C-alpha cells in the first residue's frame, strides 16, 4: 500500500525527470544554435574545399534524384486524382492544372523532398560524423590542427544548400508531369490544356517561395544532422541512437519550419 511519503517521492521523481528532459532539450537547442553560428562563419569565409563540396553534392544530391523523382511523380498523380474528385463536386474539374501546379510548387515539392531527402541525407551525415566522433577521428583532426567544422561540416552544408533546391526543382517538374499523366489518361484533358492551366496562375514568386523554403530546410537538416553526429557518444549504439534522433528531428523541424515559412512568405 502506498503511503503519503511514497506519493510525495513519486511526484518529486516525475518533476525531476521532467526537469532533466526539459534541460536536455534546451541544451540540445543551444548546442544546435551555437553550431549554426560557428558553421555560418565557415560557410561564408574562405578557404572552401570545392572538391569535397562537389563530392558531397554527388553523394547527397545526385544519388537522391531517383528518390525525389519517384516520390514527386506519384504525389503529382495522386494529387491530380484527388483534386479531380473534389473539384468534380463543384463542376470545376478543368482547374486541375492550377491546383496541382500551385500545391506542388509552393508546398508539396519542397516539403516532401525535404522530408524524404532530409531523412536519407541527414541520417547519412549523422552516421558518418558519429562514427568518426566515437572512433576519435574528429578529435584526431583537431589534434592535427585542422578544423572539423570547416573540413567536415561546411562541405556537407554547402552540398545540401545547393543540392536540395535543385532536387526541389526536379521534384516540382516531375510532380507536374505526374499530374499531366493522370489528367490525360483519366480525365481526358489534353497535355496542352493541362500545362496552360498549370502556368496560368503560377507566378515567379510562387517558385521563389518553394525554393526559399528548401534553402531553410537544407540549413536545418545539415545543422541537426551534424550536431547529432558530432555529439554522438558510446560506440555503435550511440551512433545508431543519434541517427534515429536525426530522422525524427528532421521530420518535425521541416514541418514546423514549413508553417512559419509559409506564414512569412504569404505576408511578403
Amino acid at each position, binding site marked *: 500500500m502506498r503511503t503519503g511519503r511514497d506519493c510525495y517521492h513519486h511526484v518529486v521523481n516525475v518533476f525531476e525527470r521532467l526537469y532533466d528532459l526539459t534541460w536536455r532539450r534546451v541544451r540540445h537547442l543551444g548546442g544546435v544554435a551555437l553550431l549554426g553560428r560557428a558553421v555560418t562563419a565557415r560557410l561564408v569565409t574562405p578557404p572552401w574545399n570545392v572538391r569535397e563540396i562537389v563530392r558531397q553534392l554527388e553523394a547527397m544530391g545526385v544519388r537522391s534524384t531517383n528518390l525525389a523523382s519517384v516520390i514527386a511523380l506519384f504525389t503529382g498523380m495522386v494529387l491530380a486524382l484527388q483534386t479531380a474528385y473534389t473539384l468534380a463536386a463543384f463542376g470545376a474539374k478543368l482547374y486541375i492544372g492550377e491546383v496541382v501546379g500551385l500545391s506542388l510548387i509552393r508546398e508539396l515539392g519542397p516539403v516532401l523532398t525535404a522530408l524524404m531527402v532530409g531523412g536519407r541525407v541527414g541520417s547519412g551525415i549523422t552516421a558518418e560524423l558519429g*562514427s*568518426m566522433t566515437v*572512433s*576519435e*577521428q574528429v*578529435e*584526431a*583532426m*583537431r*589534434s*592535427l*590542427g*585542422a*578544423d572539423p567544422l570547416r573540413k567536415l561540416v561546411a562541405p556537407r552544408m554547402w552540398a545540401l544548400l545547393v543540392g536540395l533546391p535543385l532536387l526541389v526543382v526536379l521534384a516540382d517538374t516531375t510532380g507536374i508531369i505526374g499530374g499531366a499523366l493522370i489528367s490525360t489518361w483519366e480525365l481526358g484533358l489534353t497535355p496542352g490544356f493541362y500545362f496552360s492551366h498549370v502556368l496560368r496562375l503560377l507566378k515567379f514568386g510562387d517558385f521563389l517561395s518553394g525554393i526559399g523554403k528548401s534553402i531553410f530546410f537544407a540549413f536545418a537538416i545539415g545543422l541537426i544532422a551534424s550536431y547529432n553526429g558530432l555529439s554522438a557518444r558510446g560506440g555503435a549504439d550511440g551512433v545508431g541512437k543519434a541517427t534515429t534522433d536525426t530522422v525524427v528531428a528532421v521530420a518535425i523541424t521541416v514541418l514546423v519550419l514549413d508553417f512559419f515559412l509559409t506564414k512569412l512568405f504569404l505576408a511578403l
Partner: protein
Amino acid sequence: MSATRPAVLLVHDLRKSFGAHLVLDGVSLEMRHGETVVVLGGSGEGKSVFLKHVNGLLRPDDGEVTVLGRSVSRLPEEELVELRRRVSYIFQQGALFDSLTVGENVAFPLREHTQVAEAEIAERVGALLERVGLGGTESLAPSELSGGMRKRVALARGLALEPEVILYDEPTAGLDPLTGLAITALIEEVTRTTGATSLVVTHDIAVATRLADRVAFLSKGRFGFTGTVAEAAKQEGPVGQFVRAGGVHA
C-alpha cells in the same frame, strides 16, 4: 632529469569533472625538455582525460596547463592550431581517417600546415612510413591494417611535422605482447632520434620500464607518486602493488 633544461609542460592543480563524476582532482606535473614521463594508473582513472588537456582537446574546470610557454587552458581553439603543430597526439586506436588511404593520412598534416609540393609530400610520406616499418603501404585503406599497423601509421602521421612534444595514449593497448614490444621499441627509437619530450599514458608496466625517465601514478584524480620505476616498485600501497603486479620488483 636535469632541472636546468627548460620546462616544456607545466600542469598546475588541474581539475575536471563530467557531471557529478570528479575525474581529475588537483593534478600537477612538470616536464623538462627531452624528458619522457609515463603516466600509470588503472582503467578509468582519468589518464586519457589528463592527456587530452595537454593539447587542449579538453578544457579544465579549474587549474592551468602550459605547454611550450603557451597556456593551453586559456587559448581559443583557433590559436591552439599553431601549438598543435608542435605537439603530436597519438591516439589509442590510431584514429586514422577511414575515408583516406594510409598515405593520405600521413600526408594530412603536411597538406594542412605546409606549402610543400605534392612530389615532396609523397617522398616525405614514403620516408615516414619506412621509418615505422610500413614502407609501400601508402595505397592501403586503414580498414586493411592490423591494430599494430594502425598505431605505426598514426605514429608516422604524428611525426610528419617534426613535433617537439609527443603524447601517446595507451600505445600498446589491445596488442599482443610481441607487437606491443615492437611498438615500444619504435617509440624508444623515435624519442632517441628526435629528442622530443614524450608523455606516455599506459597501464603497461613494460612500457614504463623501457621508456620512462619518471613515472607518475594517477589514482583517485591525483598523482599519488612521481619518481622512477624502481622507486615506484619500493612503494607501499597501490603504487607499489601496481608496479610489482607488472613484474617489476624492488
